[in-house]
């Protein structure tokens, strides 16, 4: 596919979002966007309370444009004022949309390339995908345990690199699969670094395929086993390393200067890096969630983990929202709106308001990288 082709860029944007966590999560996000967009314009303005039909929780779209999720409706809010975002069965699934795009892109369903891509998307979206991958990893890893710790660690390194790279791009794995492998790799390295010769038992069980329906569950079991062996501190170090990796990747994504002259492709590079950061936040979140299941955790450790899990989850949500924004702004309608808004504030001398918009879309919501500030403020060029 030609990356300059707008259709190819559109496919890449959707696929990037589709695999960020897993197809189920992507479909939910996709449906929510369409359901919200189906509300009358007057109901999509700040100041409203919402709930999704058939789902728990409430969303406050505050008058200042910010939003907050509440598990229960706060006192003082009239339940009759809550708008219900209806379920909308008429929206095509993201899977159908993606495969339809692929067919349109190549213009022939008999192309081997498009057939393979559709087959990969189909497998990824199937209920058996996660367990198939878990069995594959377990089978490959189990053979290496006898070869020693170095062989196991080398396998995990290589498998992770493959999954996080070509695996994601070609829709052979989900971000959740990668996150699971990332955690297993980080914890295994910490366990091996202890050099107490007890890692073989842990590694053998790590690659036991029974009772674990996914790579992420393999990681969760490993974390539980580590705590049972008194290695909770090593788990904490491993999760922290993954989380720091996410922060570092996010920072790199934001600092990366464009090396081309195609605004869209340069932004694609930013969103690709954002996806990688998001998967690290997902891995850290899953690591904390897994550790929080350990009953012997101290209250203090539990409180710290809950706090950190919440912080990384928020960053993951921001990444997910930004990747959805990239999809919605492929035609640059939103970019033009933001530039018009900023230009309007500047013309009125309301520079603080213009700066607030820039802060919002660049630093808070991560919709654009910092280098894009100049593009947003430049209202002269198209």
């Amino acid at each position, binding site marked *: 596919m030609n990356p300059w082709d707008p259709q190819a860029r559109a496919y890449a944007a959707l696929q990037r979002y589709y695999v960020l966590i897993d197809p189920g999560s992507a479909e939910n996000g996709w449906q929510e966007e369409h359901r919200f967009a189906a509300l009358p314009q007057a109901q999509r303005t700040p100041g409203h309370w919402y709930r999704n039909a058939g789902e728990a929780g409430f969303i406050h779209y505050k008058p200042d444009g910010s939003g907050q999720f509440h598990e229960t409706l706060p006192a003082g809010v009239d339940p009759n004022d809550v708008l219900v975002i209806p379920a909308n069965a008429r929206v095509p699934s993201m899977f159908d949309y993606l495969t339809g795009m692929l067919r349109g892109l190549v213009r022939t369903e008999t192309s081997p390339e498009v057939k393979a891509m559709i087959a990969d998307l189909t497998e990824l979206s199937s209920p058996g995908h996660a367990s198939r991958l878990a069995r594959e990893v377990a089978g490959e890893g189990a053979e290496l345990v006898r070869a020693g710790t170095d062989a196991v660690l080398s396998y995990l390194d290589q498998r992770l690199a493959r999954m996080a790279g070509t695996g994601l791009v070609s829709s052979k794995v989900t971000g959740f699969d990668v996150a699971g492998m990332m955690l297993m790799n980080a914890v295994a390295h910490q366990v091996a670094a202890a050099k107490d010769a007890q890692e073989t038992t842990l590694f053998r069980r790590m690659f036991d395929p029974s009772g674990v329906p996914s790579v992420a569950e393999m990681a969760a079991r490993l974390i539980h086993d580590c705590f049972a062996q008194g290695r909770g501190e090593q788990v904490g170090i491993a999760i922290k390393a993954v989380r720091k990796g996410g*922060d570092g990747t996010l920072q790199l994504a934001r600092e990366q200067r464009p090396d081309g002259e195609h605004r869209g492709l340069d932004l694609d590079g930013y969103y690709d890096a954002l996806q990688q950061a998001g998967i690290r936040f997902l891995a850290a979140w899953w690591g904390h969630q897994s550790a929080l299941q350990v009953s012997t955790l101290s209250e203090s450790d539990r409180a710290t983990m809950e706090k950190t899990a919440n912080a990384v989850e928020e960053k993951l949500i921001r990444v997910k929202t930004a990747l959805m924004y990239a999809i919605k702004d492929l035609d640059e309608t939103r970019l033009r709106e933001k530039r018009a808004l900023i230009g309007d504030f500047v013309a009125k001398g309301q520079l603080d308001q213009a700066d607030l918009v820039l802060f919002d879309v660049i630093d808070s919501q991560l919709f654009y990288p910092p280098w894009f500030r100049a593009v947003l403020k430049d209202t002269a060029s198209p």
Partner: protein
Amino acid sequence: MTENLDQAKLAVASEIGPDIAEFTPSGDKNFLVPAAVALLGGVFLTAFFKGIAETAGKKVGEALVDFVGGVIHDIRGKNASEQNHELENSSKAAAAARAELSPEQLAAISAAVESALAKALAKGADEDVASRVAARVRAEGLKVIREERAA
């Protein structure tokens, strides 16, 4: 609110950016919060200014950490208008205190307040994030103090 203070608030808010949840209660789910983050940037700046003005080298170590942490706690309990009022007053007080200090004293005191702010923030947030934000608060706070004095 002066333009300098507005810019400083926003600069600190930019540093907080997607790390906002490090500074909010665990149960809160925040998204799309530009105004709230800007306000939080102002709270941290107020703590810095009060650290400069009211301690001026008199409080050190854990006492300074407790003082800065206490200011943050108190200010966050106020409404937006009160928070902005506190920010303005504290920046003026810090600029006045700065007039009594040599550049070396200001550098030493502001470094101590930054360190105390980082430690106070790290009680509920990741250490690296806390240090990074505290460093930005100091940089932006000093800019405001110098500009207030020049004005």
